[in-house]
């Protein structure tokens, strides 16, 4: 995959990762929110590229943002970086108030504590108890439903009027969650239990900064077959 958008003069922005990874999607959304052009360096499944190994020697994982030759690793750290570097371009991703920032960082950390250890189990990419994974996902989304009221202050997103840090942290998982819902036949973002999140998810997924980046559910389901073959 080549250029997503024309980069601003003098800026070279590359994103090492894969279209299906929620972690990579997070960075893509942040860059789109700020109108930053970048090149996606698509990783080949099952292989780690030279550039990935060189730019993330500690974890050897995607995403890595390479900005004018300098690598930044860990998706939510990258999102903060993008927010700070391109502060004047587009809305703030993190809130201005220190307490709200702490809340945003907390929920992002919580999401990363709960979803990556549960969702992949349900597509067969990770060993573990399916029942436990399902329960963990239910608990997570319920807490986020409760958190939404406090964070959104009557507006559309966790970040208020515009997409913010928690929106990106959680919303990046929506494609994967929808795919898993189809695969296991369970509704996680259920309209009855989570009325606020249902509306939020629709607004998030249809947002300009998200719509072309969120992986399509059918493509994810197709992709996940590679894990089922092993079982």
């Amino acid at each position, binding site marked *: 995959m080549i250029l997503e958008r024309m980069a601003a003069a003098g800026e070279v922005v590359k994103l090492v990762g894969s279209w299906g990874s929620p972690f990579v999607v997070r960075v893509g959304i942040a860059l789109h929110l700020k109108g930053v052009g970048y090149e996606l360096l698509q990783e080949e499944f099952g292989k780690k590229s030279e550039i990935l190994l060189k730019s993330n*020697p*500690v974890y050897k994982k995607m995403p890595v943002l390479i*900005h004018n030759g*300098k690598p*930044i*690793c*860990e998706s939510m*750290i*990258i999102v*903060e*970086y993008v927010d*700070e*570097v391109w502060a004047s371009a587009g809305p703030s991703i993190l809130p201005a108030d*220190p*307490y709200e*920032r*702490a809340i945003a*960082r*907390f929920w992002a*950390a*919580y999401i990363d*504590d709960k979803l990556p250890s549960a969702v992949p189990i349900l597509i067969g990419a990770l060993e573990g108890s399916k029942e436990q994974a399902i329960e963990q996902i239910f608990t997570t989304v319920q*807490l986020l439903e409760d958190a939404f009221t406090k964070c959104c202050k009557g507006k559309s997103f966790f970040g208020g009027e515009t997409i913010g840090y928690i929106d990106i942290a959680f919303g990046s998982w929506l494609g994967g969650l929808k795919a898993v819902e189809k695969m296991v036949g369970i509704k996680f973002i259920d309209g009855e239990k989570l009325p606020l999140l249902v509306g939020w998810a629709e607004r998030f997924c249809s947002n300009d900064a998200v719509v072309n980046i969120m992986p399509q559910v059918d493509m994810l389901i197709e992709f996940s077959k590679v894990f089922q073959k092993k079982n």
Partner: protein
Amino acid sequence: MEQAPSGLKLFGSWASSYTHRVQLALKLKGLDFEYMEEDLNNKSPSLLLYNPVYKKVPVLLHLDRPIVESVIILQYIDETWTDRPIMPADPYERAVARFWCYFADDKLGPAVGAVFGLAGEDQKAAVAQVHENLKLIETELREGAFKGRRFFGGDKIGILDIVLGCGSYWLAVFDEVMEVKLVDPEAFPLFHAWLRDFEEQEEVKEIIPAIDRLLEYARGIRQMMLSLKDTPTAAAPAATTTTTTTTNDNSNVAVESGSGV
């Protein structure tokens, strides 16, 4: 109960590195605060109220609003009281600092904890893992992001010094209690020199508990853990009654993953 003028109250545990991180940051910023020692075997209703998701220390209460997770608390403190910053100013430097803070709690901490919980060949493998992690940090000090610096934060202690430093004192304690060599000054000269320098700082000396207290504490837990590995004997009941103490206190040793205890 009188509230400190800054409106700060910290719920913590005396042996918790994560708690020490917050205490150190508050001290560096010259902020007074009220301290509540938590008995982790009998968590206070306040702790459960303020940290319902994780139920762990530290919890910082500021003007009656709780902030949890030590690295998040450190950034909150830095952003609210902007004198004597602990985060770098430059966005790239900030990303680098955040990354290594994440690494400390994601990789190094659990690796050290694993050393503590194991014996024999398993422990040797865990020690090797710690060395792998220290090597990465040593490389950054020698030729990477932190080349030529006295502290990770530069001339002064910064967030990464606080995160790595509060916890690294356990390395020497474990070396003594278990006769392993975690921080070999020959293998990790820069890390070793940094740690000694860090531990000599006045503010740090005031925060870190006395070494004999830490040694006694670690020895006690290690005894329990090893006796739990033995086949049940007449001595087992004594071990079991203190099991809950062990598991909770052990999580105090801030070498577990996660930012709280």
